[in-house]
């Protein structure tokens, strides 16, 4: 009888019979603290439970034989155990931290990032365009970060004692050869590309990844938007010109177009500056980004064209009638990249860019015509072995062809060179735990022009010192070819070299960030020549060297004062170098000792307005006083500028925008120009190099037309 009951149950109610397999155990983190609420279950079955306050779980299952038990909890790596169900009792399970978590240490030495989902953003996407002094130029916004030097008359980025050519700009990982519109002395340039098309910016002031080369001091990485949020049309009417933008979306692709026209003639007619303009600055530009999804891949094609021209007469101490300068430039840049996530943790990225730059410059009688054709090709593979170990490797090729025709009434010369560089790099990212991460890389470059191979190791390390703080270290070797201005005369040179040593401390919590960074940079192989302005007869060598060291501080606080977001940057820089025609090591005129920036933004809800404030101070810059012995022995007085802006939302899609640069009209002197020959008393006359205008006013009206009637161009200002 007994037997038949069992048989009956076995046959008809297997559920009862086998339903008694207990599964039980405890879940803790790696320091033994119980995890409450972890989800414990058999894969593919309904059976499971949540762990209790002591991390204990138990449930019963009707499943038999080999099963997979999964334990998952937010911010831990899921744990899998495959075994016979009967053995799944009194388990002791330790979950490992998920290193993808925000709490994981990040290597922050040397780099600032602005973006949506970067772990710690020093700048937010909006900052690029709402910083009062920046006037919509992303370079202008970056100049409020520590590590940069105020060189107001130039407009480019000068990083940690390096000159502007030592910073390279990349769009979607591909190099931009001519990122700035050419200009003349004492008229600051602007970045060519509108911030409108980018959604991620990383600015590295040193110690950057082996993926990037040909930059002695710094790299600026810009990423175009992968997928625009919506279709819209943007119209901008400004006191200096106008702009039109449109984005169109389809099922798997999208196209953004942006055109702008700037003409300073009306502005200069109302507010004349110190220059005598025959043809005020005029530029027309167009940009387009096309994106297409192909399976798991994304193709992006970016193109930008701009043409600009101006003509003016600038005061000159050696020529009482002034120097006549005219410039006409056409620049075309295109960049295509394709990235795809392949199987088994592989990602492939391939891309290329082509730059055509044509510049005609007239200085008094001389006519100079430059044509640059440059290309960059890159292929990169990434293998993700686990969350904790990733390997990148790739190869790239840079090609530059440069030709210059120089014509004067009694003299003419043709110059040019071809510069091909091949490079390969590899880099490993190792995350030991949430507390410790290491990045090791090496880059090799071969220059066809110099027949020279350079090898640059790079390393960075980060360690979490507390819940909100971390320490990072970085080291790297960096090589860069001399500029076109030198290569057009000689190719009997070597690459210039720097070494960076960086130590960074970062504290970030509750919308406050504090960063402190000390660094030392050692320069060697810098190009020197024996004349003030090099020419075909100059003697060039690689015998220059130098150093830069200093401290950068950054504090941003978006919490303490309601509706106010502000940041303060301070940089201390000590640098000397021997390069160009320097007779000995000296502090170059673009490097000053103290730089301070204070930027604040105040949102006034009742006025629907954002008021912005930006103050910049730079201590005096060196110049050579010809009336006293020495070289770069004197310093100008400090630079001060306070800029204000006001964005007023007329309605959801219409914005009125005003800004004033140098609102208090501080009188700034960037340097002095001395006469070539002394006067009858043996004195060299000099002239102050002042900005063309002390102040700049801007008024704009921005109107966005989109389906949702909500988007506006606040992010373009």
């Amino acid at each position, binding site marked *: 009888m007994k037997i038949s009951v069992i048989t009956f149950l076995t046959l008809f109610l297997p559920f009862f019979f086998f339903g008694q397999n207990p599964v039980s155990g405890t879940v803790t983190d790696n320091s033994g603290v119980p995890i409450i*609420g972890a989800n414990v279950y058999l894969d593919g*079955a309904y059976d499971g439970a949540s762990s209790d306050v002591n991390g204990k779980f138990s449930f019963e299952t009707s499943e038999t034989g080999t099963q997979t038990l999964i334990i998952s909890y*937010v911010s831990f790596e899921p744990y899998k155990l495959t075994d016979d169900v009967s053995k799944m009792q009194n388990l002791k399970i330790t979950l490992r931290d998920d290193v993808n978590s925000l709490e994981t240490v990040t290597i922050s030495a040397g780099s600032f990032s602005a973006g949506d989902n970067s772990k710690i953003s020093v700048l937010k996407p909006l900052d690029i365009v709402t910083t009062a002094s920046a006037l919509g130029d992303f370079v202008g916004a970056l100049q409020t970060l520590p590590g940069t030097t105020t060189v107001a008359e130039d407009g480019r980025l000068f990083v940690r004692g390096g000159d502007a050519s030592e910073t390279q700009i990349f769009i979607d990982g591909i190099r931009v050869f001519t990122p700035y519109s050419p200009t003349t002395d004492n008229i600051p340039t602007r970045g060519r590309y509108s911030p409108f098309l980018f959604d991620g910016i990383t600015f590295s002031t040193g110690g950057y990844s082996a993926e990037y080369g040909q930059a002695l001091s710094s790299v600026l990485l810009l990423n175009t938007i992968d997928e625009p*949020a919506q279709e819209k049309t943007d119209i901008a009417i400004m006191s200096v010109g106008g702009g039109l933008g449109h984005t169109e979306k389809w099922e798997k692709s999208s196209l953004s177009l942006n055109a702008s026209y700037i003409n300073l003639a009306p502005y200069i007619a109302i507010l004349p500056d110190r220059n005598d303009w025959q043809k005020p600055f005029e530029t027309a530009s167009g940009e387009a980004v096309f994106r297409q999804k192909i399976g798991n891949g994304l193709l992006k094609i970016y193109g930008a064209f701009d043409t600009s021209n101006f003509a003016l007469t600038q005061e000159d101490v050696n020529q009482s009638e002034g120097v006549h300068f005219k410039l006409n430039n056409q620049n075309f840049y295109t960049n295509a990249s394709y990235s795809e996530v392949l199987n088994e943790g592989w990602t492939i990225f391939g891309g290329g860019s082509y730059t055509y730059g044509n510049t005609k410059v007239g200085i008094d009688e001389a006519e100079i015509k430059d044509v640059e054709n440059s290309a960059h090709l890159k292929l990169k593979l990434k293998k993700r072995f686990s969350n904790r170990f990733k390997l990148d490797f790739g190869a790239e090729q840079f090609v530059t062809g440069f030709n210059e025709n120089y014509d004067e009434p009694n003299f003419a010369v043709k110059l040019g060179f071809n510069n091909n560089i091949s490079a390969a790099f590899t880099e490993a990212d190792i995350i030991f735990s949430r507390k410790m991460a290491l990045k090791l890389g090496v880059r090799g470059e071969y220059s066809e022009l110099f027949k020279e191979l350079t090898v640059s190791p790079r390393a960075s390390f980060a360690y979490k010192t507390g819940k909100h703080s971390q320490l990072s270290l970085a080291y790297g070797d960096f090589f860069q070819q001399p500029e076109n201005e030198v290569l057009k005369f000689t190719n009997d040179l070597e690459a210039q070299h720097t070494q960076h040593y960086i130590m960074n401390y970062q504290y970030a919590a509750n919308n406050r960030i504090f960063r402190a960074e000390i660094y030392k940079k050692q320069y060697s192989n810098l190009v020197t020549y024996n004349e003030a302005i090099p020419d075909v007869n100059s003697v060039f060598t690689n015998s220059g060297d130098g150093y830069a060291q200093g401290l950068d501080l950054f504090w941003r606080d978006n919490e303490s004062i309601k509706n106010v977001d502000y940041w303060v940057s301070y940089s201390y820089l000590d640098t000397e170098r021997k390069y160009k025609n320097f007779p000995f090591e000296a502090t170059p005129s673009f490097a000053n000792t103290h730089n301070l920036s204070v930027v604040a933004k105040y949102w006034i*809800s009742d006025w*629907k307005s954002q008021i912005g404030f930006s103050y910049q101070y730079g201590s005096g810059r060196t110049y050579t006083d010809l009336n006293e012995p020495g070289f770069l022995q004197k310093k100008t007085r400090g630079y001060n500028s306070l800029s204000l802006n006001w964005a007023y939302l007329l309605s*959801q899609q219409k914005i009125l925008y005003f800004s004033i640069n140098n609102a208090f009209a501080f009188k700034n002197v960037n340097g002095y120009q001395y006469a070539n020959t002394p006067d009858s008393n043996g004195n060299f006359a000099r002239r102050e190099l002042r900005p063309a205008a002390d102040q700049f006013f801007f008024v704009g009206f921005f109107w966005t037309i989109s*389906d949702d009637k*909500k988007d506006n161009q606040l992010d373009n200002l």
Partner: protein
Amino acid sequence: MQNIITYLTLFFTVLVMQAQTETTTVNADAAPTKYQQGMQKAFQLWQDDKSWEAANVFERIATAEPDNWLPPYYVAQINVINSFTEKDGTKLKAQLDKAQNFINDATAISKDNPDLLVLQAQLYTAWIVFDGQQYGMTYSAKASELYNKALALAPNNPRMILSKAEWDMGGAKYFGQSVEPYCKDIQRAIDLFATFKPAGEFYPTYGEERAKQVQAESCK
């Protein structure tokens, strides 16, 4: 931005209460399947204010029912809703990443599903609520587009009408404009809720109470 935030937080509190009334739709005729038992258990836990345990049950069901978009939808929804009150950025990111993974899973099963689009928009909103300065501009544009798309896919679904109208009203209030143009949409949603039948068992049904509340508060 603050107004939008208060507004949406309110909306989600109500949403939670309504999602839980779900439990009553049980097929009484046949013996409940494991799936039905599991779903009922999850909704019961949710109603008993044990939303994380409910999420765990939904997650288990999701592994056992790889072709059903509802379990991952509810896992994501619980993570999104709980993120609106989360102040710790680390936790918030972990929860929203998890929600995003489950939305991705659900979307792979059910493409162009207006309820999933609205949930995705709500996920973006959670980021905006957390840090409007950082995420406001990009994510509000994305959310707007999702509401438009959801409404285009289901023009007569009262929940889509309500979601879009509320989003637009939030924007209008923020800019001090009249919300009156959207009141007719709210009325239309209320009318449609009266006869609304979910497409299947355990499908989302929330929204009617909220629509009436919005009407009472904003449309006199």
